[in-house]
């Protein structure tokens, strides 16, 4: 993700020099190219070349008798695979289940903790704490919380006389368990963005609303939320990317199981590539996943910024 963002300023710097290059072909082009070459080399090596290779892999099949071009056959096989359909559905549910609650929680935290004061600063640090724990470590911690019978959750449920559950071992619960962990982990991170967004709202807008006699709910509904719209678009995209690119906890807690219940797209791709040696299908799944992600990102950002730009 970062390299895409990095490349934007790089490209905008390059543009004027290209225009100048039309007038003075050699000298004008050499210096910017030389200056850009370190990042260009790394981008080519680690971004563009893999993209080309994924596209190549996606249209070829490696069999025991050699490699051949198969066109879109890998994509056809991919969409016919019930496990892929399941992974797609799981990931959609997971994205919905993580993005919406973590944004709502992040907004609630941010609204409650906006402003100065020692207690607020302390609470902000407390809510931010899960962000600083690596996802793998967080997953390892939750393994002990979720242990059926002897884990922390079941232990306390038993004290209340309630039956526990096999949180990670029950196909109906496993995805929700993973979702809860993710919301816990990410809400504090999104809170930071929303806090920044809140501080960018001009005081005049709030004061004007107060003078007009708007209540707290009206101020939230008509002043704060509209002003936060670009922030939400941005955080929404980040959250969406996280829902697809972070599967560390799936590796630690469930390995996609039980019975495919927590198989997310990235884990599916990993299984196809690393366990089944099916580079073609893994590449096809990668192309589909990235295509979906790019489309969703474009839509969210356009919706978030469109009305702002029009105003």
């Amino acid at each position: 993700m970062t390299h895409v963002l990095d490349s934007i300023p790089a490209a905008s710097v390059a543009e004027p020099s290209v225009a100048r290059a039309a007038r003075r072909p050699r000298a004008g082009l050499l210096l910017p190219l030389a200056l850009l070459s370190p990042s260009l080399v790394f981008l080519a090596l680690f971004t563009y070349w893999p993209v080309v290779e994924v596209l190549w892999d996606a249209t070829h099949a490696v069999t025991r008798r050699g490699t051949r071009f198969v066109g879109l056959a890998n994509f056809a096989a991919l969409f016919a695979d019930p496990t892929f359909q399941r992974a797609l559905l799981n990931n959609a549910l997971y994205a919905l289940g993580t993005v919406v609650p973590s944004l709502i929680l992040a907004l609630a935290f941010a609204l409650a903790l906006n402003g100065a004061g020692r207690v607020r600063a302390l609470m902000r640090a407390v809510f931010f704490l899960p962000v600083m724990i690596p996802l793998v470590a967080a997953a390892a911690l939750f393994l002990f919380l979720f242990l059926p019978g002897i884990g922390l959750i079941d232990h306390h449920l038993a004290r209340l006389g309630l039956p526990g559950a096999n949180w990670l071992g029950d196909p109906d619960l496993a995805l929700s368990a993973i979702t809860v962990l993710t919301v816990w982990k990410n809400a504090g991170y999104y809170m930071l963005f929303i806090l920044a967004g809140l501080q960018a709202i001009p005081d005049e807008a709030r004061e004007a609303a107060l003078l007009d006699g708007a209540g707290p709910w009206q101020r939230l509904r008509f002043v704060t939320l509209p002003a936060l719209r670009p922030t939400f678009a941005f955080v929404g995209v980040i959250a969406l990317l996280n829902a697809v690119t972070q599967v560390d906890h799936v590796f630690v807690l469930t390995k996609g199981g039980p019975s495919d219940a927590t198989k997310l797209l990235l884990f599916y791709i990993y299984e196809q590539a690393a366990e089944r040696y099916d580079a073609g299908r893994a590449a096809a799944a990668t192309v589909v996943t990235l295509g979906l992600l790019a489309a969703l990102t474009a839509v969210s950002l356009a919706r978030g910024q469109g009305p702002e730009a029009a105003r």
Partner: protein
Amino acid sequence: MISWWKGAAFALVAAAGLAAPRAAHATDIELFFPVPVDGALARNMSGLIKEFNDSHPDIKATPVFTGSYDDTLLKTRAAIKAGKPPAAVIMSANFLTDLSIEREIAPMDDLIAKDGKTPDAFMGQFFPALLPNAVIDRQVYGVPFHNSTPLLYINADHFKEAGLDPDKPPRTWAELYDAARTLTKREGDRTTRWGLMMPSNYDYGGWILEALTMSNGGRYYNEDYGGEVYYDTPTMLGALTFWSDLVHKAKVHPAGEQKGPAVTGAFLAGQASMMIISTGSLTFIRDTAKFPFKVAFVPMNVRQAVPIGGASLVQPTGLSPEKRAAGWTLIQWLTSPEKSGWWSRATGYFAPNKAAYDLPEMKAFLEKNPDAKIAVDQLANAKPWFATYRTVPVRKAIEDELQAVLSGKRQPKEALAAAQKAADALMRPYVEDTALRLPGAE
């Protein structure tokens, strides 16, 4: 994905090569080792390798911890692809078939011949039950390092309290079923103590199901050909239905997927009275349990039979002659009777080298810990471990269905049909290239 990986690995290897000046004459080698069960195996391994390096000044071995058995397979394959294979790997014994089909590990017959031994004489040091997973197409691909079988563990206090005799653990499925019902405790809707628990997570579940299938007279897979599994068969249907009944009918075994640590944890906390897990956890249980426990053979329905488990030392293809020779020295040292016996006492795995049991320290140990002897005795009933082309996904095909059955999502019969179909599809490329490659078809 893979290519990116390859590039990064190359860069790392190149950097490492530049940064680390070689020691005068010592050959640097790496040993990849997994830690598949509970306990302090990683620490024990570091101690063992330090001892090896001290006694072999011309070799510098570095132990590299590579996670579970499945992870070790992946990391070994990644290292081979990156052009930097480790000189020796402690590899799950049932991956050797797949690795030899893909020519990713090298036979060791020439190294054995160089030492003036025949392969038969060399492999004769080890228990015969271990050979089918190590000798493939009459070539030696692996040297058994630590091995296990599934074992029934019982909480002796619970047995006494429930009026059962802890000196007579269940021997048949019927006795197991009855004992589990007697031992289970409930408070209203809530089960406070399970009669029996068996792990059903990936890797463990397939192995336990294989043990039940074999105890039911089944074979599970074709020991002589890597393209066939017998999932949709009466023996397996009986085994899976038995497990399903323990969960859904008798309600003496918790529903859903159970991970290995959850099973041992529940047993140690007194929340499960019996469990069937690996002998490899024996030392951990012995050191941790705060109550008297006993172990016994896996109960049978048709015959007494269990699969072996554990790992063998293998050498990837593409090693330089020096590294290969140094790796071979390490392999022989690790599998000698003394080290084999020491590792066995440290972990609970039994020592594959028969001579380990003739050593005085081993005799004294078995005298003190008769449970360790039961694990060795069960070897008389041991059969090879499920190994096919693409073992991991073929195994996951049945494990996904097993988990669905234990969660009440599927009936055993349809689950087995689905697993068979999935496994056949996975092995299809190999089958088409071997058993179905017929004259005149080209």
